[in-house]
C-alpha cells in the first residue's frame, strides 16, 4: 500500500534498516487515526474512582460516548458508572457555562454525596473560557469535599496530555489523608483499571506475599485511599503512560520510589512480584513470592500446553493504546508458540518502540498512531491469524477474516495475572480455531 508521505516515518520494520521512528506527534488530518483526545485520556484514567462524581462540562457527546465505557468494576460504590454532563446548550456557549456548572455541581453533590468531584473540561470550555478553577474553588468552599478541575480540553494534545491532566488532578488529593498504621511493606497499585476484576487478583497476590496495598489508582479506587497514598513505601506502576506522571510527582514530593511492571503474561506477572519483593529486601516476602509463583505455575503450565500445541506457528498482530502493554503481549504470544508480525500503539514513546524493535523478529512491522487502511494492509501482507486491539480495530480484523482478541477498555475477560494468561490463551484459541473462518473468502481462497 502507498502511504501518506507524512505517515512514512511513523512505521518501522524490524531489522530492515537502523531503528528510526517518529512518534508523539499530532495525528495527521484526514488520516482517520484510531486515537481519541485529551479528554478521553483523562476520563479513562480517572473514571474508575468509584466514589467520586465525574462531571463532564461540555455538550452532551463527550459524556455520553464515555458512559461506563471502561467496564471498570467496583467492590462498593458505583458512582463512576453514571454519565454526568452539564449538557451545554447554545445559550451557555454565548453567555458562558459557569453558572450552569456551579448549579450542576451543587445539585449532583447533594444528590449523590460523593467523596470528591472531578470536573472535566472539554474543547468548548477551553474556547469559551469558563474558569473551572474558580468554579471548583467556590463550590468546594460550600460542600466540604474536594472539587477538582481536570484540564482536559480535547484539542490540547493527544491522549497522553489527558493522562497528565488526570495525574495532576489526583496529585491534588494525595497528601491530604492520614497515613498512620500503614505497613513499611506497602505499595500503591498505579495504572490498573480493574477491568473484569483484575485488580482484585493482583491485590490478592500482593497480600499473599505480605505486602499491603494502600491505594488502587485507579481501578476500584476510593478517594480516601488516594488521599493517604503518600504513606505507601513504593509505587508499582503498570500502565506507565497513564500514571507514571503521578508516580514522579510522588517521588519528588514524598520521596516514594516507583517501579514499572506488567501483569500480563506469566513472565511479566512473576517478574512484577519478584521486583516488589526484591525492593523490600525481606527474606520472608521473597520466600512467599517464590512459593506463590511456583504454586501458580504448577497449576497453569500444564493447562497451557494444550493451547500451545494448537497455536504454535500461528501469527499475531497487536495494536493497543499504550505500547508498554505490547511488550507483555509479545512475550505472551511467544509462550503460546506464536509469532508476532506487527505491533503498534496510539501513544508509544520512542524508547518503547526502540525496545520493541530489539525484541521482535526481523520483518515485524512497528507502527505509531496508525489508521484503518494501514492496519488493513499490514494484516493482509502478513496473513495474520489473530489481531489484538480494541473495539475500533475489531471490524477491521473481522472483515479480513482474521480472529480477534479485545485487549482494551471494554473487555470482559480478565487477562492479567496467572489466571489471565490462561484466559488469554483460551480466547486466542477460540477465535483462531473457530470453524467460521472456513466461510470467509480470504481463508477459503488460501486453502
Amino acid at each position, binding site marked *: 500500500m502507498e502511504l501518506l508521505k507524512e505517515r512514512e516515518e511513523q512505521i518501522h520494520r524490524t531489522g530492515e534498516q537502523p531503528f528510526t521512528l517518529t512518534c508523539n506527534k499530532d495525528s495527521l488530518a*484526514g488520516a482517520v487515526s484510531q486515537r*481519541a483526545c485529551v479528554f*478521553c485520556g483523562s476520563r479513562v484514567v480517572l473514571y474508575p474512582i468509584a466514589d467520586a462524581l465525574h462531571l463532564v462540562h461540555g455538550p452532551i457527546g463527550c459524556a455520553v460516548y464515555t458512559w461506563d465505557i471502561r467496564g471498570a468494576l467496583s467492590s462498593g460504590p458505583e458512582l463512576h458508572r453514571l454519565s454526568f454532563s452539564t449538557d451545554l446548550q447554545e445559550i451557555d456557549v454565548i453567555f458562558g457555562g459557569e453558572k450552569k456548572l456551579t448549579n450542576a455541581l451543587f445539585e449532583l453533590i447533594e444528590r449523590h454525596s460523593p467523596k470528591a468531584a472531578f470536573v472535566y473540561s472539554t474543547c468548548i470550555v477551553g474556547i469559551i473560557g469558563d474558569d473551572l478553577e474558580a468554579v471548583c474553588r467556590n463550590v468546594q468552599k460550600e460542600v466540604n469535599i474536594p472539587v477538582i478541575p481536570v484540564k482536559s480540553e480535547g484539542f490540547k494534545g493527544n491522549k497522553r496530555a489527558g493522562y497528565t491532566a488526570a495525574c495532576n488532578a489526583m496529585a491534588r488529593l494525595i497528601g491530604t489523608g492520614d497515613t498512620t498504621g500503614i505497613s513499611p511493606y506497602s505499595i500503591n497499585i498505579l495504572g490498573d483499571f480493574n477491568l473484569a476484576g483484575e485488580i482484585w487478583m493482583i491485590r490478592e497476590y500482593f497480600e499473599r506475599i505480605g505486602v499491603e496495598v494502600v491505594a488502587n489508582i485507579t481501578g476500584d479506587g476510593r478517594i480516601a485511599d488516594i488521599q493517604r497514598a503518600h504513606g505507601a513505601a513504593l509505587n508499582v506502576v503498570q500502565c506507565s503512560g497513564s500514571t507514571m506522571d503521578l508516580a514522579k510527582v510522588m517521588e519528588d514530593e514524598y520521596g516514594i520510589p516507583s517501579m514499572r511492571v506488567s501483569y500480563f503474561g506469566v513472565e511479566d506477572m512473576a517478574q512484577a512480584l519478584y521486583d516488589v519483593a526484591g525492593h523490600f529486601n525481606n527474606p520472608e516476602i521473597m520466600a512467599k513470592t517464590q512459593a506463590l509463583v511456583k504454586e501458580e505455575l504448577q497449576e497453569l503450565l500444564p493447562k497451557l500446553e494444550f493451547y500451545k500445541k494448537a497455536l504454535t506457528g500461528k501469527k499475531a498482530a497487536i495494536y493497543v493504546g499504550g505500547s508498554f502493554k505490547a511488550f507483555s503481549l509479545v512475550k505472551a504470544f511467544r509462550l503460546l508458540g506464536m509469532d508476532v508480525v506487527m505491533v503498534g500503539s496510539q501513544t508509544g514513546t520512542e524508547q518503547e518502540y526502540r525496545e520493541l524493535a530489539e525484541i521482535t523478529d526481523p520483518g515485524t512491522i512497528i507502527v505509531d498512531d496508525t489508521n484503518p487502511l494501514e492496519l488493513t494492509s499490514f494484516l493482509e501482507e502478513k496473513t495474520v491469524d489473530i489481531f489484538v486491539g480494541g473495539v475500533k480495530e475489531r471490524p477491521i480484523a473481522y*472483515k479480513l477474516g482474521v480472529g480477534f482478541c479485545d485487549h482494551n477498555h471494554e473487555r470482559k475477560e480478565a487477562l492479567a495475572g496467572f489466571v489471565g494468561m490462561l484466559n488469554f490463551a483460551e480466547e486466542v484459541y477460540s477465535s483462531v480455531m473457530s470453524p467460521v473462518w472456513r466461510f470467509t473468502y480470504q481463508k477459503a481462497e488460501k486453502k
Partner: protein
Amino acid sequence: MSKNPPNYISTTNACKLCTPLGAAIAFKGIEGAVPYLHGSQGCATYMRRYIISHFNEPIDIASSSLSEKHAVYGGGANLKLGLINVTKKYRPQLIGIATTCLTETIGDDVKMFLNQYEQEVKGEKPTMVEVGTPSYNGTHMEGFHNAVASVVDALAGKKDGGAEGTPVNILPGFVSPADIRYLKEITEDFSLNPTILPDISDTMDGQAAKTYEKIQPGGTPISAIATMGNALASVEFGHTMSEKSGGAILAEKFAVENIRISQPVGIRASDRFFDHLVKLSGLPIPEKHRAERGRLVDSYVDGHKYIYGKKAIVYGEEDMVVGLTAFLAEIGVIPILCASGGKSRKFAEKIAEATGDLLPEQPQVHEGMDFYDISELAESLEPDLLVGHSKGYPLAQKLSIPLIRVGFPIHDRMGGQRILHLGYRGAQQLFDLIVNACIAKKQSDSPIGYSYM
C-alpha cells in the same frame, strides 16, 4: 411538556447523542461517501467506536485533528489538508463534512474554506457536502436530518435518467439497515423506482467480502440523488424534524409533493404507508404484503391475552417513540411514559394524534429527558416493560422487567442492524418479541414453571 423544573440543570445518563454523530450516519448512507468531522480528533474516534458497537461494521470517519494552535488560528489549513489526504487514500465520490462544537465556536467558515480548496487544489475532486452540526444545538437526530437536507440541497436535481418505473423518493430517517432493505423490497413490489436517502442497508450491514473495501459498497447513488427532483412524490417518515427537511427542499425547489407520515410501525401506520404506495403506483397492494398483514392480524389475536393491559415505558428518538407508542397502543399494551432526549416541541402532539382513539388516557410525554428522570418517574409508574435502546438496560435491571431492544444504539446484543421496526413484517417481529418477553417473565417468575403458555 418538557422537563426543566428549576432545580434540574445537569444531565445524568443522557437519552440522546450529539449532532455530528447523526450527520456521520446519514453520510454513510450515500454511495462512495466518507464522513468527515471538522474538529479535534476525539470526536471522530469516539463516534466511530460508538457506531461500531451497534453495527459491527467498519466506519471510517475522518477528522481535521485540530490542535491548540488551530483552535487559536482557525482550522482552515487542516481542513484542506484532511480533505486532500482522505481523497488520496479513499478515493471517495463524496466527502460529507460536519462541523463540531469546537469549529462552530471558533467561527470557522467551512463554506469559505471549501471555496479556497476548490481553487487551490488541482485534479479530480470528490463532491463536498457540508452541514453545520454544533453539538450544543439539538441531538443526533437534528444532525441526521440536517445532513440529509444538506445533501438534497446540494445534489438533488432534475436530471434525466434513472431506471424504469415510477420514481419516488423515500426519506426514512434513522431506521435500521434491515428496515431499509425491506422498504426497498416493498416499493419495488409496487413497481416503483425508489430513491431511498440515506440508504445504510449495505454500508452499515455489509457482507463478508474477498478484499477489504475502503468504502463499503452500497448507499444512495449520487446519480440517483441528482434525479430526485423528477420524482412523483417524496415520502418522509417523521414529524419532529425541522420544517426545512429533505422532503421540504424537494417540494420547494422541484415541486415534488412531500408526503410526511409517521414511521410506519404497527398495522395502522403501515396501512397509511401502503395506501400512499397504492396511490402513487396505481397498483393494489401486492398479495405478498396482504398476506403478511393477514398473518400479523392473526398473530395479534393469538397473542393478545398475554400482553393486554401491560404498562410500557417507551424512550428514544422522538419519531421512533411516536411509531412504537402507536404500535403498543394497537396491541393492547398501555404506554405510560414516552420519553426522549430530543426537544422538538411536537412530541406530545404527535403521540396524541397517533394514539388518541386507542387510548382512554394519554401517556405522560416528556421531552429533554435523561435516564435519571426516566428512572425517577418509573418508580411510581410501575411499568411491566421497557421499549427502547440498550441504554435502558440499567433501569430494566433495577426494575427486573424485560427490555425490548429497538432503535439505536443496541450494543449489549448482537444484531442491532438487523432489527426490523417498520411495516407489517417489522410489527410481526416486534409483536413476537414483546409477547414472548412477557411470557418468559411470567414463566421465570413462576415458582413451579410451566411448559405450555
